[in-house]
Structure formats: structure tokens, C-alpha cells
């Protein structure tokens, strides 16, 4: 999958391949009031151009809210491109902003193309198991590509995305970066879920929640939990079924460990699942590991809570 240079660069330094994000915090001193004024003045010049684009010269004034949206788009694109080029925030004081903006828009367009490829893959491969929210969300994302405006509203997400991922996309991601990340995560989830016999997945989802098709319920988490739980028990994960007794056994196993140890044990079990199922890619492996580790507090809490985690029967 094509990745922009900055993403690749960041990927080598980030410890967490799931939430590496595009915008790691930069340790820079805040702008002085004088610098802030200078940045605002420079942005104002760009904003005037954006307003002319938006209104095609018909309106010389705009509501503050409308102008603020245009400004958010500008700042988003400039920040995105600055990070790609490894520029500090202070570059806004000296850089050729129109050029930086154009380069950012071109790079975002590349992200749109990538996201569109991911979307095509999602349409082809995602099994919704009857989940109405997943189905509607997939359709809704199609609207994104019709409505998204990389020049004027690059930060916006003009689509209804209701289906909850197991690990939500960080809210720091905006615009097409959000959509791309959402689709990547959705495909990661789908790849694991579809490695199992569909009837067993459906049976598990029904045990998890009989009305799951009409509820805002993630499909991946119960599957991931059961696969990891069965791995902890040293059993094959194919049946996707854990009994109350087995859930109790997992509870005792993890409750006997210190909190870090329980999380580590779950992470190891997730790695074993990825190995056995040939789950490809660091991101997908990291995703399952993080999902598994997040289950630790609920499993350790009590046998009943562990039973709920595994939708035990």
C-alpha cells in the first residue's frame, strides 16, 4: 500500500504502529505575541484567496463561522505539509505559504486516491454479517469522495460514519486522513473476522448480543477476544466458542499475574493468533495486541466479567 514519505518516516520511530498518527507533538516553544500576529497576517492573505475561490468573487464578506472553516482547512493543510517536509511550526513565519499550501493539497489528493483504493477494497471484501450500521457506514463513506473538497474544506469529513471500530480513529486526524485511517482499521478488523467460518462468527455475535444487527456494535472485538482467549487456553481458535468454565480459567490465569503481566500475556496470545492465522502486517498485529491488552481489566475483574468478555456459553 502506498504511504507518504512522512508516514513511512514516522513509522520507523513510533513505538505504536496503530496510533502513530500524522501529527506527533513537536517540542517547540509557543509563538510570541509578535510572531502570532505575523502568522495571522500571513494566513489572512491566504484566506483572502480562499474566500475568492469559495465565493467566486461574488461576496467580499463572509460570516465568521464560514471564514473560520476556511481557515481551519488552511491550517490543516499547512500543518500536514509542514510535518511531511519535517518543517517546524515556525516555518509558518518564513515559508512560501502559497507553495506550501499547493504542495499540501497535492499530497492530500494522493491521500484521497489511496483512501479511494482502500474504499474499493472495503466494498469488495468487508463482510457486514447483517450489521446495518456497518452497511450504512460503508455506503456513507462513498459520499465522502463525492463531497470532499481538498482545496476549501480539507479538514472536513463530509460523511456519516456511525459504525464503531474496536479501536477508534484518533480525533486528531481530520479530513481524508481520518477516512483513510478508518478504512485501514476497518480492513484490518475485517481480515481477522473473515478468517473464521461465517456461521461461527454469526453464532458468536448473536451470543454477544442477539440484536447486534441493529445495534451500534463492533463485530471485531468479540471475535478477537475469543481468538485470544482460546489461544491463552492453548486450544485452537476455530470454534470461536468459550464456555463459562473456560472463561473462569482465563480469569484465574490472568488474575494471578501483576497487571502488566496480564496485559503482556494477552499481547503474547494475540501474537500467537496472528502467527497461526497468518495475519499480515505490523499494524494488524499491533491492532490485535492492543485490543487484547485492553481486555485485561475486565477479564481480571471477576469470572462473570470474563464470561461477558468472551460471550461465554
Amino acid at each position, binding site marked *: 500500500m502506498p504511504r507518504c514519505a512522512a508516514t513511512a518516516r514516522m513509522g520507523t520511530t513510533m513505538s505504536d504502529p496503530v496510533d502513530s498518527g500524522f501529527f506527533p507533538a513537536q517540542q517547540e516553544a509557543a509563538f510570541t505575541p509578535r510572531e502570532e*500576529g505575523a502568522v495571522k497576517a500571513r*494566513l489572512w492573505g491566504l484566506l483572502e484567496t480562499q474566500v475568492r475561490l469559495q465565493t467566486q468573487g461574488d*461576496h*467580499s*464578506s*463572509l*460570516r*465568521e*463561522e464560514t471564514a*473560520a472553516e476556511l481557515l481551519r482547512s488552511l491550517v490543516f493543510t499547512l500543518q500536514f505539509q509542514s510535518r511531511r517536509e519535517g518543517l517546524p511550526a515556525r516555518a509558518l513565519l518564513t515559508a512560501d505559504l502559497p507553495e506550501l499550501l499547493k504542495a499540501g493539497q497535492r499530497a492530500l489528493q494522493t491521500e484521497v486516491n489511496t483512501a479511494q483504493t482502500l474504499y474499493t477494497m472495503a466494498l469488495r471484501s468487508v463482510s457486514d454479517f447483517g450489521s446495518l450500521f456497518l452497511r450504512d457506514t460503508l455506503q456513507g463513506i462513498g459520499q465522502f469522495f463525492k463531497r470532499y473538497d481538498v482545496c476549501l474544506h480539507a479538514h472536513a469529513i463530509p460523511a456519516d460514519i456511525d459504525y464503531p471500530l474496536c479501536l477508534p480513529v484518533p480525533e486528531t486526524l481530520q479530513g481524508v486522513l481520518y477516512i483513510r485511517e478508518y478504512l485501514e482499521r476497518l480492513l484490518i478488523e475485517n481480515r481477522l473476522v473473515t478468517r473464521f467460518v461465517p456461521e461461527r462468527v454469526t453464532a458468536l455475535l448473536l451470543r454477544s448480543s442477539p440484536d447486534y444487527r441493529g445495534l451500534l456494535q463492533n463485530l471485531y472485538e468479540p471475535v478477537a477476544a475469543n481468538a485470544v482467549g482460546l489461544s491463552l487456553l492453548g486450544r485452537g481458535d476455530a470454534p470461536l466458542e468459550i464456555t463459562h468454565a473456560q472463561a473462569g480459567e482465563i480469569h484465574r490465569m490472568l488474575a494471578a499475574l501483576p497487571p502488566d503481566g496480564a496485559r503482556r500475556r494477552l499481547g503474547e496470545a494475540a501474537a500467537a493468533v496472528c502467527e497461526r492465522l497468518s495475519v499480515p502486517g505490523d499494524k494488524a498485529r499491533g491492532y490485535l495486541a492492543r485490543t487484547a491488552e485492553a481486555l485485561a481489566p475486565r477479564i481480571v475483574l471477576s469470572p462473570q466479567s470474563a464470561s461477558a468478555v468472551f460471550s461465554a456459553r
Partner: protein
Amino acid sequence: MEKRGLANAGPAPVRAREDRLMQCNEISQQFGLTLTPARIRALVAAERRTLRDTGRLEFGEGILPRMIYAFCDSPFIARGDYADTLEALQELFYTFKNDLNDALSDDELLEAMHTIFHGRAQGSLEYLENMDTKELLAALRSDCADGDDDE
């Protein structure tokens, strides 16, 4: 960045706006209407106030120069009321922009106001003030149609 911060980043400097209005005197004085420097300063200050009150940001030179060119030949504007009338028209303009949700372009709205002011309003600012957007659009359609018929 905060919206207010954005407004503070500011459009064209006050001085440039004042100079532009001074230039407009060259046209308006042909019709006996001029703005003194003090009146110009007051109008520019009023523009800022109106924009703040209507929650709008101005990215061009403001509407006043175009408004002066459109209204300076009006038989309904007396020399002594010129600046006050411009200030009122300017306030109405930005208010209508909001009320109409920017459905009319600057030029269309200015033309609508001009048509109504010189038509059914007969120079009454109160008449204009009391129009809601539906009436404004309806009046614009009918007054423009009348105008077309007259031609």
C-alpha cells in the same frame, strides 16, 4: 485559531480604507455629495462595528465604495444626510447578507437595495429596515420586472 483572533488579523488597514473613500469623493462630488475626513473615519469605524455586530469578516475593500457609486446620484439623499444614510445602508447591507444567508451576491443585493430604495421605499430607510428577506426578494423580483417593463 480563535475566530476573534482571525478578525484581529484584520482586513486592509484603516488608513487604506479611508483613502479609498476619499477617492470616492471625486465621483460623488459631481452630485454635490462629499465626505469630510472626520465623516470618513466615522464610517470606517461604523463598518468595523457593523461587521462585529453581524458576525461577518470583510475580505475586500468593504461595501462602502460600491455603495457610494450606486447611491451618490440618488435624488432621495440630501447633502446633510449623506454620511448617515451611507452608514445606515451599510448596516442594512450586512444585515441582509446574513438574513439572506448569502443567497444574493454583493452586486445583486446592492442592486436590490438600490431598486427598492428608489422604488417603493421612495428613499425611506425605515421602509428598507422593516423589510424581511421574503419581502426583499419579492420586491426585488417585482421591482426589477417593473424596471424591465419600463425599458
